[in-house]
């Protein structure tokens, strides 16, 4: 009878305390949704739906920041920037969930104008209402007290800090120093100053920033990935089509799973390890619930 009593309790708890089930689910570890398919807009929607839909993150009237990687003067085929189809879909979903405004930006490495145009982002977001695709304006960087392990303070972009929802949409790619660059590293795009200087302690520095700027939702674009000569690539021979989008609310889990697509284990990636150690999320793949979407 003890088993039945337990089930009863669970049933009643589910009725009256929805959050209890969620807590039970959370105890199982974070969810990572992995959507596969050639229709990149559709798999993006599927991945979001598998996490409970965009309305779980975006409430009516919210200001949403979608932060892709579009730091390089490269075309979408070259895989150095986030797939514009994925970005557009995320923006559409956010608007459908009731976002008042969706802002898309990145601090670029090459000339801002060329990056915005050639990444395909200008064309992808053209004509969308309540969507802002603006160049970074230096005056908007705010000195933020990080009190981190590598960085005491750094300039971060206020539009990212002030957003109601921050959606991190990195492209998965090879990186010469960190081996792979994913969600944790994508936040470098909201850092001001001479951010190149953080490379000497990049694992702790990125964790410092991610601790302050939380990504409410991470969508890793692995539709096509750079497998060598990252983060910039250039040769189509370095581009591999995986046709996957990975979504999670746990940035470390999303990164950890995406790492495996490159044949690495999460423990090999110093940035992931540091973020996990400092409580940003789960990197143990056994503790992560992977949902195929």
């Amino acid at each position: 009878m003890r088993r039945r009593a337990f089930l009863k309790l669970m049933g009643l708890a589910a009725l009256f305390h929805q959050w209890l089930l969620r807590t039970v689910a959370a105890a199982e570890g974070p969810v990572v949704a992995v959507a596969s398919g050639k229709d990149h807009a559709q798999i993006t929607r599927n991945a979001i739906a598998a996490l409970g839909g965009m309305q779980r993150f975006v409430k009516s009237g919210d200001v949403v920041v979608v932060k892709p990687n579009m730091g390089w003067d490269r075309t979408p085929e070259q895989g150095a920037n986030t797939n514009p189809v994925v970005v557009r879909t995320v923006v559409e979903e956010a608007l459908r969930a009731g976002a008042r405004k969706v802002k898309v930006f990145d601090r670029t490495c090459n000339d801002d104008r060329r990056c915005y145009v050639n990444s395909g982002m200008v064309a992808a977001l053209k004509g969308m209402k309540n969507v802002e695709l603006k160049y970074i304006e230096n005056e908007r960087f705010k000195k933020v007290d990080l009190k981190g392990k590598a960085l005491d303070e750094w300039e971060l972009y206020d539009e990212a800090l002030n957003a109601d929802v921050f959606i991190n949409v990195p492209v998965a790619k090879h990186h010469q120093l960190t081996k792979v660059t994913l969600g944790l590293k994508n936040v470098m795009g909201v850092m001001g100053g001479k951010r190149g200087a953080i490379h000497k302690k990049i694992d702790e520095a990125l964790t410092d920033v991610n601790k302050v700027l939380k990504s409410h939702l991470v969508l890793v674009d692995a539709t096509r990935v750079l497998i060598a000569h990252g983060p910039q690539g250039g040769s189509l021979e370095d581009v591999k089509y995986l046709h996957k989008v990975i979504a999670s609310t746990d940035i470390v889990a999303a990164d950890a799973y995406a790492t495996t697509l490159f044949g690495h284990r999460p423990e090999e990636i110093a940035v992931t390890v540091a973020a996990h150690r400092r409580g940003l999320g789960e990197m143990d793949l056994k503790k992560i619930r992977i949902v195929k979407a």
Partner: protein
Amino acid sequence: MKRPSTARLSQWIFLLVFAVLFVKTEYRGSDTISAAINSFFRADPLVLASYLAANRTFTWLLFPALLMLGFTLLLGRFFCGWICPLGTVLDLVTARIKKTAPLQVLKGNLKYYLLLPLLFAALFHVNLAGILDPLAILVRALTFFLYPLFGDTLRGGWVGLYRLIGERRDLLEPGFNLLRNHLLPFRETFYPLAFLSALLFFGILFLERYETRNWCRNLCPLGTLLGIFSRFSPFKRLPGRLCGDCSNCRSVCPTSFDSDELLQEECVLCLECLTGCEKGRARFAWKPGGPRSAGFVPQRRVLLGGLASGFLLSGLFRFRRPEAEARVLRPPGVQSEDDFLKKCVRCGECLKVCLTGALYPAIAQAGVEGIYTPVVTPRLGYCEFNCTLCGQVCPTAAIPSLPVAEKRRAVIGKAHLDKNHCLPFARRTNCIVCEEHCPIPQKAIRSEIVETLDLEGKPISLQQPYVVEELCNGCGICENVCPLEGKSGIEVLAVKDRTPLKRAAIAPPEARSTHKKESGTGTSEDAAGVTEGGGGVGGGGKEDAHPRKESQGAVKAGGAAQDAADPYGSDAYR
């Protein structure tokens, strides 16, 4: 208000066109820029004359200038009175400047002693004409001084507004965007020689206090050149001198009545005398016949004097400081320094259009002769890999207009590491910023993993960069992004041999894409492995290692074909 004369109308239209072209000399989302951008310089006969003298070849780029000369031969100096934007600016301000007596020192043959030495020096391979070209003076004053100041002031106001009202500034955003997208420079670059550029321009304005169009009639080398041709024009103003009973023309005419006789080579065809003539005598008519002014101007001794001083002038500025020359990095596609100096008109168009603000006017590093010529200054801006704008706007092809695939291979210089400065060497910390920014798909900057001790004696694994010279096009982004302050740990130095990189070094992605299509579903690991021999998928610890003896801990992972030869062979730092 008086109805403006046709000449005035034309002046305004051309000034407007000039201004529009100037503002449009900027990347606004398209890889190609209108061919009309440099049309003023391409129609400039002084540019043509000095180009011909220095290079002894003709270029079709300057065909409009040839046409302009032809029309001048027929009609006279209409360019000065109808088109020249600097002349128009002078006409706009001159009415507000009170005149004293003309400066006698400017009279006589001075203008020939400006024009002729310039042209003859060009004949001896030193082309300085652009320094005194009126269009170049105007463009440089705008590019180097007024436009950045204008942009910076407006931008400063915009930033100030943000500090004042914060996010609410967004309400005004559409208006500012309109300004920024169509009128403002994308980034305000402040230039050296701004002062000299401003001085020349405002000096010319200042000269207006002595007489109208002072510069145009007494100094301007372009005007003087056109004047020489206009002497043969059969299109003449009649009567050819002041009438005995009326001297209205003297006060009405801005240029030609220094004496009682009309100086045809000074007449800019503004037609003011037609409206100013109360007696209805003044008219313009087709009247073929030789030059009317007494004697041939310039006289023989002026011509010979010009020749001699041009010859002497060409020898004055040959000296170059070798250590300064190492940093004379010319825009992409320029192969020979001598050739470049012969063709460059110092118009400043390339500096204006440069996406990243990489081009700066040379002050003295290219010799006195090289003043105002464009130099890539990587610490301030780098040459954008996929951009070809400077070649597109150059009116004389001193910077060749290359297709993007060729421009990527064009060598500006070669990067050199300064190991006393570079972080992984000097501070034993990881960095790789230069490597990640290197735009060459196969990377001209690579790193090897070295097991070594940090400065406190703890063993660490370091990625130390090295340059693959055969792949480096000297774009300078490495030097630009180096996180060190002030002096960079990697610097681009000029090279004499600017043979473009091998085609295989930067195969355009378009050319490779066919091979890629089928392997899209997952066989590309092999493809990457074959071409790179380095870090493909699963190549966890592998880096493109370079076989160097002293690097015990280096992980060797094949190495691409380019690695076969030691790129450090000729490196001075080694």
